[in-house]
């Protein structure tokens, strides 16, 4: 590197920056961040989470504005990659105005990122992370308003067992933390329900599933359960049907995107899926949300959008309670207030967090794909829905209180 040139360059930069900086703002600013994949194959869901948080801040920050605070929104793209998520986390904890994070979509990203939040007492509310390790680590700042994979897998298995003519299942997963995790719970629960598990296989294939399909056809299961994300599972069922598979098809909430209908086409019709985040249409209270969201962003909300909206609402309410209590507005105070949330009335349910940050009662829904038209996705039929307590809540119930 040539010295004279580089030093000249440096000099110019310094001079340019010595130009007076734009002054700091006077209004007190509270920022809410979101982290979700805005690029990559899962960006449809991630973008929807981002948009819902933005909408929630717009609509729900009224009380805080009245108190003289302005609430701003900072979206981050975690690219569904742990490293990027952690790097973002390290970036955003340094903005003292950021009081909470809404996210992530992927448990594999949320787990390492939440360690950083925890170090900095920054509260995180997840609308979508179902991995059990999210809350089972007992971090005080980590909360979620959705259900858990263990319950989801078991719910799927119980439902599969209840279906007529289903005696054997073949379980596939995508070898990721999410897919393999939930598929494993499904497999165990299915065996307990008396179903024959014909196989438990993982595949990283994303385009050509012929090699995966052949052994399944030979075993001829009544139902295939695929623990994975729509971008993979939608293509899979399309090819499996073409290769002659005639049994049933089921999966976890990773199926839950209108993209599934597009990718699977007619082959995807009648597919069952469990979810911890029922479609907005499922909640009567969400009608207004759907309307507002569609008006603002030009497309209907995807799954988890309503949950992201409620997560934001919980956070804003917690901040408000801190301010009202006269305490200093610190991250610790906000984190404590979020954990102390009791009976928050969101459009997707009423939320109370247990000591691990799980909702005491989470909703699980089983749906069936009704049409290959992506526009019809939110009209998928709800076959069953029930609320299950979190492990802590269940244990508390089981031990008689003295």
């Amino acid at each position, binding site marked *: 590197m040539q010295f004279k040139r580089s030093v000249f360059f440096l000099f110019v930069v310094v001079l340019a920056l010595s130009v007076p900086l734009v002054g700091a703002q006077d209004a007190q600013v509270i920022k809410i961040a979101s982290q979700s994949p805005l690029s990559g*194959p899962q960006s*449809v869901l991630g973008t929807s989470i981002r948009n819902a948080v933005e909408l929630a801040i717009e609509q729900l920050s009224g009380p805080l504005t009245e108190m003289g605070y302005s609430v701003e929104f900072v979206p981050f793209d975690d690219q569904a990659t742990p490293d990027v998520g952690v790097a973002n986390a390290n970036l955003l904890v340094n903005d003292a105005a950021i009081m909470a994070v809404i996210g992530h979509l992927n448990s594999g990203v949320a787990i390492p990122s939440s360690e950083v939040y925890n170090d900095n007492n920054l509260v995180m509310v997840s609308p979508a992370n179902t991995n059990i390790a999210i809350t089972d680590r007992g971090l005080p700042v980590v909360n979620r308003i959705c259900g858990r994979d263990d319950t989801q897998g078991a719910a799927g298995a119980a439902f599969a067992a209840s279906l007529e003519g289903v005696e*054997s299942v073949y379980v596939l997963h995508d*070898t990721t933390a999410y897919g393999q995790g939930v598929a494993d719970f499904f497999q165990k629960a299915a065996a307990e329900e008396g179903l*024959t*598990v*014909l*196989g*438990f*296989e*993982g*595949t*990283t*294939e*994303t*385009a*050509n*599933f*012929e*090699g*995966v*399909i*052949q*052994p399944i*056809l*030979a*075993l*001829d299961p009544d139902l295939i359960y695929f623990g994975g994300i729509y*971008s993979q599972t*939608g*293509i899979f069922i*399309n*090819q499996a049907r*073409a*290769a*002659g598979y005639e049994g049933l098809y089921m999966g976890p909430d990773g199926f839950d995107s209108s*993209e599934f209908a*597009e*990718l699977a*086409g*007619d082959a995807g019709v009648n597919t069952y899926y469990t979810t911890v985040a029922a479609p907005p249409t499922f909640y009567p209270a969400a009608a207004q949300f759907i309307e507002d969201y569609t008006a603002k962003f030009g497309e209907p909300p995807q799954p988890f959008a309503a949950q992201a909206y409620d997560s934001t609402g919980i956070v804003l309410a917690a901040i408000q309670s801190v301010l009202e209590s006269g305490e200093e507005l610190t991250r610790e105070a906000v984190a404590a207030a979020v954990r102390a949330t009791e009976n928050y009335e969101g459009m997707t349910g009423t939320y109370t967090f247990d000591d691990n940050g799980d909702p005491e009662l989470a909703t699980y829904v089983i749906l069936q794909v009704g049409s*290959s038209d992506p526009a019809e996705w939110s009209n998928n039929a709800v076959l069953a829905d029930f609320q299950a307590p979190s492990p802590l809540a269940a244990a508390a119930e089981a031990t008689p209180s003295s």
Partner: protein
Amino acid sequence: MLDAGRSSLGSVSARSVLGWVYRFILFPIGQMLVFIVGAALVLTLLSYLLALLFPEPRPNISLMTQVNRQLPGMIVSGITIGFVYAMIALGYTLVYGVLKFINFAHSEIFMFGSVVGFEVMQRLAEGGNLPGWSPVLLVAFVVLAAMLASGLLAVLIERVAYRPLRGAPRLVPLISAIGVSFFMIDVVRAFQAITRNDFNLTYPLNNLEWIRNPVKLAIGEATVNIRPTQFIVVLGAVVTLIALNYFVNGTKLGRGIRAVSQDMATAGLMGINVNRMISLTFFVGGAFGGAAGALFGMNVGTVTPFVGFIPGIKAFTAAVLGGIGNITGALLGGLTLGLIESFLNGLLVYFPVLGQRYTDVFAFSVLILILIFRPSGLLGERVDEKV
């Protein structure tokens, strides 16, 4: 097979026409058939042997029954994907033959072909007259469009990213190629994200009646669904491969390419326009990648900008397996790899501890073993370095 037609086309007597047909059509097809049957037989025997040695009981059927049931399907899918690999591998091998470097970006040329194939079909579908096309015409049109687009792209890439580097140390163009590969992925993604707001590109095959009706074939306990798209892949591959064989071995331009790959400097001295020959090689290799992309897309239904990577690596493996630089080798390598992979998927389910998630590990192990024990590949000649 592809070295069969050494002699140029002379006088057009009946006998020479017959000889031509034999040399450029019957002989190659025969060779492919012999090879496929042989490979399939070997792998079949291996499956049964493993089934006998490790009689892991299945929950509902015996392992033998499972093998009986899945074998035909495995062979069909192995051949299908094998031909795709072979077509991509040709691009690697042609370029390697001429420039002695790995065109890492070839996987993206394949991807581009599959995306162009989608675009063409989607435009036709949006025009509303897709079902009106005759199947043969439609497939030919889509494949030719993809070939043209990918071929031109390959030429462009060579012109911009490789030609200025010719003669530089070997690592330099290889790294440039890696750069091109990354660049292409994101350019296609950006384009699709802006125009369609989505980059999972699903071929509009659902409203084509003829493409949705598989041929059901009952073999013993097994029923195989052979999908029309699988026919298309195999047929398209065979037709284009024969065309390539004729082009390389039976035409003047092909001779030029062979001359350049033998010795670039001498070919230049002999009055061959080396740059034009290299562009031509890229065009032909790219066109094959594009054809493979479109056929692959039609077969699997959905493609993305990321679809090139895995088949690209596999096809490269195939090219090495067959002996890189050797055209017949690419074909055989592709078929071998396709069959091996398909059988591995079937065989690994015998072993619950391993399972299909280890398929790629085994596929790579095959590559490594072959490279260690026969570095020149199946058909490559061992070239001792001149000292």
